[in-house]
């Protein structure tokens, strides 16, 4: 008896947390399980650290040509004075805070993370055919836009290693610096 308990107790301690983490389904047979491959086929969402960025690369020069072909029609030549969303804003390499007064403008100089433009272009652009850009084209477009905003040099190449390391000029431009939940209870709800 003593001997079996000595074996059993540590075994239970080891097993219990694992069993608890594996919560039970309340409604088995409702919904289809997805394999890892199936998830990979549709999951394009990229987080702020760029952990999910796919392999690929693009240059400023390549980006310029793609922009003229795919983006200029809405965003204007070089990303300026287009029908929508001015993509060059503020002073080169300087944070663009976005105005409290007046009309909304935006552009990569406003983003806190270098991955945001990549993720959005990859999933939602061009508006006429979202998701149709190839991975290398997205890297090239981001390189071009960051160059146009003075964030990177003309010679810099964007890939899954270099892109997350780009220092965005407005990275410290948001309050709270990192979103937290629940929010600060000492502030009024309309803070």
């Amino acid at each position, binding site marked *: 008896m003593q001997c079996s308990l000595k074996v059993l107790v540590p075994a239970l301690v080891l097993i219990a947390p694992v069993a608890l*983490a*594996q*919560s039970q*389904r*309340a*409604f088995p047979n*409702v*919904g*289809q*399980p*997805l*394999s*890892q491959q*199936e*998830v990979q086929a*549709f*999951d394009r*969402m990229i*987080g*702020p650290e760029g952990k999910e960025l796919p392999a690929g690369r693009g240059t400023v020069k390549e980006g310029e040509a793609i922009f003229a072909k795919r983006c200029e029609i*809405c965003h204007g030549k070089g990303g300026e004075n287009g*029908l*929508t*969303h001015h993509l060059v804003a503020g002073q080169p390499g300087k944070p663009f*805070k*976005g*105005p*409290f*007064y*007046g*009309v*909304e403008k*935006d552009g990569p100089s*406003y*983003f*806190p*993370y270098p991955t*945001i*433009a990549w*993720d*959005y272009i990859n*999933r*939602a652009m061009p*508006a006429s055919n*979202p*998701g149709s850009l190839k991975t290398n084209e997205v890297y090239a477009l981001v390189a071009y836009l960051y160059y146009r905003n003075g964030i990177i040099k003309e010679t810099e190449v964007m890939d899954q290693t270099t892109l997350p390391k780009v220092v965005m000029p407005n990275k*410290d*431009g*948001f*309050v*709270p610096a*990192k*979103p937290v*939940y*629940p*929010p600060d209870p000492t502030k*009024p*709800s*309309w*803070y």
Partner: protein
Amino acid sequence: MNSNNSDRRQFLKNAAVGLAGGAAGLAVGQGWSAKGQTVASAAPVTGVPSDSIGLQGHVHNEPPRRGARYSIDHLTHYTPLQDYMGIITPAPLHFVQQHSSEFPEIDASQHRLTIHGMVDRPLSFSMDDLKRLPSVSRVHFVECHGNSSPAIHAPGAGNPNMGMPVQYIHGMASCSEWSGVPFSVLLNEAGIRKQGTWLVLEGGDQGKFSHTLPTAKALDDCFVAYGQNGEPLRREQGYPIRALVPGWEGPHNVKYLKHIKVVDEPYNTWNESMNHSVSRPDLGGKARWYHFQWATKSVITRPSGGMEMRKGYNQITGLAWSGAGRITKVDISTDGGKTWKEAKIQGPVHSKAHTRFTYDWAWNGEEAMLMSRATDETGDVQPSLAELTQHWGMQASDWKKKERPRAIHMNAIQPWHIARDGSITDAMFA
């Protein structure tokens, strides 16, 4: 066409404001339309034949109508808060803020909601699957984070139709009975892991509208809605499914919901970083983001801007709401905030829902300033504009600038000025 013209005449008369032709606001890639001349009223985009919508059969063929604002990548419809009763916004009058140029056509039989990321069992649900699961049905408001923005108030803010009826100032808020499956049920089925403290919701629309949501909030009271006011969601409201995040700013309520990715940090998507943050003077020009919850708010919808007052008894009525819970009190001032008296709460009162209030009043023909001030069950009191001005580090004179502050998350007390001739105007920045 005739009814449109008559609507327009009525609008001109009611609003008593010049409207230099229907195309006055049109510029390249952007346009505004007057009440009754909207994209929506001409041809409601709902996915069902227009003659099957009951509202089309209203007396005098003059149903309450939404106003519209549209641009190359944006479409907004404003709820006519002044034209309906009770607390429920009829589905075809619910406001719309569409961040792409069209509503997607989704075949519900093919639509799948996936839950993946930090879960033990990635899952895909069909519409049939979702309807098999336990459901909830709750009355909640949904409100755009930019509703009531100072950029909207008063003529001269870029739109000749703006600044008059309450619809165009506060009409990006509506309230419905929403039905669907709680996030808690879905996340439990997928076996959410402890480190999965945030969710990223992604829509199946052209712009792949995406938003981060804390898992704690999702488990608390959020649900995946497939019904609105007894009918399937309308196409403009996210058909076949949308997220319903009670009491929080509109963008959380992702329409055409397609993917829920469980992650361990906020994903700061384009939609969140760009449109839903605004630089503020009190923060040294830094942008406030992730407000999450709407604060306590109210507005008198009748009498309100553009209407005409007549002497004698006039019931004052309006809507109050809070993202934190139930409305417990609404105070009314008819003298611009010098004195306050408690209004009646009409009921029903739901948590995080529009709440109707009424107040008996007789107008004596003298100049008056009507205001409402709501309090919620947490004791949060709706702030005055002066309080917000101070809070945002601004001067009162800043509101007079030609380029108006783009303040979002605006919940200041709304004053309506009644002149001796009975005309009523928006006095927020007067």
